[in-house]
């Protein structure tokens, strides 16, 4: 299957709103983000571009709740239940190896969001069974990024923020991972924000592309 053959997306049932978010690392430090606003619907794949250091990764962290903005809000309009266990916006970053406990086997890494892996059909074809008993450093970078994505999908998110997830991977692995991921997010009505410096990649993947420089309030 190629990306062009994916089924047309469902109608949106939820929208992720960032409204006027401003962030800095400490008081009196320079602002990293100033009044940034954006929306992503759960039936679309949106690209986010902009030069190094403009704050793209900070936007990702704020959307996923890992950094709290000093001003502004992040909310989901529509959406499913409010009693969920994991954050509805899951963040996947470039360096998968840094996102995992090096002393846990892949099986344990994946069991963190969902202990009953047998129910997890979402990871079929994304993670190979023979990786499960290995440690993170015993699989390749491409394989580990697949595990990283599988973990995020197991958390049953409504939105996925992918921050340069294939920047460290070869072109063939990159094309395969994105195809396998977007099949699942389209099927599961998961909105995707793709952060990348590669305009050609954004052009392949995204329904629309935002430039962070245009989003500052």
């Amino acid at each position, binding site marked *: 299957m190629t990306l062009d053959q994916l089924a047309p997306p469902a109608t949106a049932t939820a929208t992720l709103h960032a409204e006027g978010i401003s962030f800095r690392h400490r008081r009196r430090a320079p602002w990293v983000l100033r009044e940034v606003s954006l929306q992503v619907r759960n039936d679309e794949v949106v690209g986010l571009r902009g030069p190094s250091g403009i704050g793209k990764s900070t936007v990702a962290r704020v959307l996923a709740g890992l950094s709290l903005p000093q001003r502004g809000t992040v909310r989901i309009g529509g959406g499913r239940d409010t009693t969920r266990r994991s954050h509805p916006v899951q963040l996947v970053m470039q360096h998968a190896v840094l996102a995992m406990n090096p002393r846990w086997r892949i099986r344990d890494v994946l069991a963190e969001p969902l202990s009953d892996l047998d129910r997890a059909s979402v990871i079929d074809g994304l993670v190979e069974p023979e990786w499960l008993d290995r440690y993170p450093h015993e699989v390749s970078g491409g394989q580990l990024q697949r595990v990283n994505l599988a973990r995020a999908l197991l958390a049953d998110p409504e939105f996925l923020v992918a921050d340069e997830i294939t920047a460290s991977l070869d072109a063939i692995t990159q*094309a395969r991972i994105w195809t396998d991921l977007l099949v699942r997010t389209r099927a599961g009505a998961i909105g995707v924000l793709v952060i990348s410096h590669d305009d050609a990649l954004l052009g392949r993947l995204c329904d629309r592309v935002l430039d962070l420089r245009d989003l500052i309030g």
Partner: protein
Amino acid sequence: MSLFEINQLSVSFRQYDRGLRRRTITPVRAMDLTVDTGELVALVGESGAGKTLLGEAALGMLPANGVDAGEIRFRGEVLTRARRRELAGHEMVMLPQSVTYLDPTATVGAQVRRAFRLAGRPAGRDDVRRALVARDLPDDVTRRFPHELSGGMARRVLLTMALAGRPALVFADEPTPGLDAEAVRAIFAELRAIADSGCAVVAVSHDLSEVIGVADRVVVCQSGRTVETATPDDFRNHTLTHPYSRALWAALPAHGFAAEEEP
């Protein structure tokens, strides 16, 4: 004779499974690479094919359970593992892949001053600030901690540290992921200038379309083997000989984004 030659390098790891059952994995099977002073050689190919291990073996930086075989020569001398450790950090340096090689608890200024001191360069506050500003970093960068740097800034800090000792061979492991197109071009232009100033540079990269703009030769590897040494023109003119090299080119988003290798 080239400045630096790798012939039929292999790297294996001995691991203990459950209990005392031992297994050996060999991620690098047969890799060849040659680079001379003034040259920039790109090393491209499959993630996990052993590109980083090649650099670590060359600089004697393999983990303790790693064993390498084959021949590594520098200025004609076959390097023992001990000799590689002596040269590493002085004559041969690694520009590391991950920006996490910076110490998260120390300021940029302190870390670069230490690198300058180890390299025997004047390491005053002003020497360090001037060197950083010369790489387009802001004036206050010396007071910042690594988490306050963007990816591009962190790369330039690492570059400043790696080049402190004026090495003869620079092994740049993925110098550009996460950088915007302009910053990528700037880093590659910088590596080209470093080569032109009398260094041998090996650049591991997945940014194939950019790196062929500056490389003299491109070594393609797959599954622990170097499968082809090509010129940048071989990519542009479709005169690559190995199917994997052709598939890699076809999978670039700007080309076909083809997820399958040729049969």
